């Protein structure tokens, strides 16, 4: 339990941080006491990562102040933060895979004489830290050979070795088995007992109830509040705080009558990513897919279009089984995949719109490209997505919204009827969002089937005829438009109580 009499070790006061076009954090204050586990919660994009990075010196806040043990401080870099006793265990393991646990723990802080490392001192220091965690593997093998859980322990050991007073854990259980998680929790409780302040970020409500002494909730870059362990720390409170007020303004859209099944996914499994995912999409329907980052949604999409290999299961498009061998099969079957990462996977940024728009179907004869037709096709297709601009422009010069339109234009040219959108409006401003939504609706109304992966709650609730929810690689919930609510989606995706499920 946090020691209320103690002074906070780290205090953030009124911290704000903006990025071009986005206010990532606004006026957020938080205190960390020695001997507490402080959960930091919020939906994707609520500003958790930004806050962590400010605590860890990777970002400097635009406004607000940071105090270490009551004294004003500026953390200019992660190395600086580390020297001040603030350490972070990253969501993705950040160790040098070729070096051993011992080498990683002392990396950058080696004691040396004339450049020659004192390995004896390094061993003593690292082994002491590892022993506190009952490190189960050899500290001498390259950490790249250890399991993710063991690698995480090495990161924790590094935090202990520098005697970090604040240890930030960013979704540490994301890739751990439940047994490994339990073991980690034991260790975290020990560390709390030893007086460390732990910041714990997790999407899993159960873990938070299990571990946290306090929970601070962020939403849209703002502090919603901090709840102490006790009667107030309930699932309902937390979900309400994370989600905010209801979104009734989207509720009164007409419900459509969907047509025949156009995409049918059955028992699709990819080891280590997701298991036994089955669902279908009908003509005229937009099916939303919700879930936290890492729940396996993008992985499912990538398997449907054979960008990754599925280990088991079938995908039927328009009534015939897909061979699931290579992406070109799925393109032929009329499946369009609009990736989340448009800049790398959706567009050739240094090429013209004409080339980009016709990339999936280039007009050619005997291998020679018909440039005139290419430009004409591109113009027509771009017109269909109401993106009227010269086809000679380079894709890299466009705004995010227009880039998404070009990607859509490309797929329209292939006569695709099944569209998979992964985060269709990420990085797109509000005006362009509405246009993208209108285009999606129009596609569906013309008989296409759409699967829309999204982390934005308003988008899911507004656009989807049905919502599927994934958690930890499994499809855990499905709801029709009329039964869908933000609370239900969040409780499914964070593993809420049984009573929340239908």
């Amino acid at each position: 339990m946090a020691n209320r009499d103690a002074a906070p070790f780290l205090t953030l006061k009124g911290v704000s941080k903006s990025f071009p076009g986005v206010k990532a954090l606004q006026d957020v204050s938080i205190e960390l006491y020695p001997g507490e586990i402080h959960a930091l919660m919020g939906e994707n994009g609520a500003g958790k990562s930004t806050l962590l990075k400010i605590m860890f010196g990777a970002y400097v806040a635009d406004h607000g102040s940071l105090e270490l043990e009551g004294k004003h401080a500026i953390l200019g870099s992660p190395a600086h933060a580390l020297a001040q006793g603030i350490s972070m265990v990253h969501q993705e393991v950040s160790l040098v895979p070729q070096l051993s646990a011992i080498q990683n723990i002392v990396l950058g802080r080696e004691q040396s004489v004339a450049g020659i490392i004192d390995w004896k001192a390094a061993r003593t220091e690292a082994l002491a830290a590892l022993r506190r965690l009952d490190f189960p593997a050899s500290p001498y093998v390259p950490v790249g050979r250890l399991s993710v859980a063991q690698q995480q322990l090495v990161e924790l050991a590094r935090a202990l070795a520098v005697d970090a007073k604040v240890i930030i854990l960013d979704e540490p259980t994301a890739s751990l088995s439940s047994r490994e998680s339990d073991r980690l929790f034991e260790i975290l409780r020990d560390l709390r007992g030893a007086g460390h302040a732990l910041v714990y970020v997790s999407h899993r409500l159960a873990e938070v109830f299990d571990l946290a002494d306090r929970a601070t909730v962020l939403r849209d870059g703002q502090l919603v509040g901090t709840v102490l362990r006790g009667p107030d720390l309930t699932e309902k409170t937390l979900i309400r705080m994370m989600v905010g007020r209801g979104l009734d303004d989207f509720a009164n859209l007409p419900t459509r009558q969907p047509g025949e099944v156009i995409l049918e996914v059955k028992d699709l499994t990819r080891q280590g990513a997701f298991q036994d995912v089955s669902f279908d999409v009908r003509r005229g329907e937009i099916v939303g897919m919700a879930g936290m980052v890492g729940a396996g949604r993008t992985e499912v999409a990538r398997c449907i279009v054979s960008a990754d290999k599925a280990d088991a299961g079938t995908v039927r498009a328009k009534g015939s089984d897909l061979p699931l061998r290579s992406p070109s099969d799925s393109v032929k079957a009329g499946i369009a995949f609009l990736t989340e990462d448009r800049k790398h996977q959706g567009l050739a940024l240094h090429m013209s719109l004409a080339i980009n728009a016709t990339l999936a179907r280039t007009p050619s004869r005997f291998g020679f490209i018909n440039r005139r037709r290419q430009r004409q096709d591109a113009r027509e297709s771009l017109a269909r997505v109401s993106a009227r601009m010269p086809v000679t422009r380079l894709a890299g010069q466009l705004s995010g919204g227009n880039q998404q339109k070009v990607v859509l234009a490309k797929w329209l040219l292939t006569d695709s009827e099944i569209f998979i959108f992964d985060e269709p409006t990420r990085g797109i401003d509000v005006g362009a969002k509405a246009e993208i939504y209108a285009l999606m609706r129009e596609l569906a109304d013309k008989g296409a089937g759409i699967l829309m992966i999204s982390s934005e709650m308003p988008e899911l609730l507004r656009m989807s005829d049905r919502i599927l929810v994934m958690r930890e690689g499994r499809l855990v919930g499905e709801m029709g438009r009329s039964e869908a609510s933000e609370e239900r989606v969040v409780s499914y995706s964070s593993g809420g109580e049984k009573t929340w499920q239908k």
Partner: protein
Amino acid sequence: MAKIDADPLKKAASDAAPRITIGRVLGEWRQLGIVAALLVTVLVFTLIDRDFFSGYNFVNIILQASITAILAIAETFVIITAGIDLSIGSALALSATVSGLLLLGGFSFPIVILGSLAAGAASGLLNGLIITVTRITPFVVTLGTMSIFSGLALIISGGQTVYGVPPGFSDLLAGAIWHIPTPIVIALLVLVASALVMKTTKLGEYMIAIGGAREVARLAGINVAVFTAAAYVISSMLAAVGGMVTVARLGAADPTLGQDLLLPAVAAAVMGGADLQGGEGSMLGAVIGALLIATLQAGLTFLNVQSFYQQVAIGVVIILALLFNRLQKGRA
């Protein structure tokens, strides 16, 4: 933090691995493959012709391999940082020419050696600075400096081979110490020193960290630019060592030297366990790789195989050795 006595874990761990790092164990494991390749090659040539198996022949092969070995070690330093040094042959030619001209100018041997090393250091510093400041990929940068260095070598020598190297210089670097040819001794010293740098110094440790996970190294407060540039300086200075030995052996400094040295150097380094993705490499492995290439060349020559066929055969063996490494790594 208090230094807690860590005996139990230490004891358990020392059963698993002898000392310091598994890097060494893994290195030895990786070298198994190339050692096997070397032994098989020797065996095959011996089976074809008994006369191949002679002490005289082996000393010759090792002597032939010594320059390649030094360059392969140099290349390994750079590859460990996830870079590559294509300019290494040209840097050798440039510093060899510098040493030839200094010798011709009548300077004392220490001055000649320092001058040649300085030329190497300057070449490496240029590579390192361009790479760390502009962040252009090492492949392209050293491709450019490869041309620059060989051009400079031709300019300062007027395009002519520099003759008239004093016999004393040849005795110094290409003679013999206790009946062992000096180039072999030099290569051995370079090997031991380089292995020690990798195992015991911050320089070696940080080069591995930078090559293995650049961002992790940066976040750990390591000056990535300095240690990256250091690898290129070391590489070119070792090229200078190779250059001087070559000059001593030939008794002349040819500004077009080194063109043929790049391929065997990179091949030996990679066969010896250097990972082009960075973070891994073995100095001993690089040397054994150089020995393998020299053995192939010597053996094929011994069997009177035409040099055109030799080139093909060497290429095939390099690819086979790398394939073996790849399979070995996949299993590990």
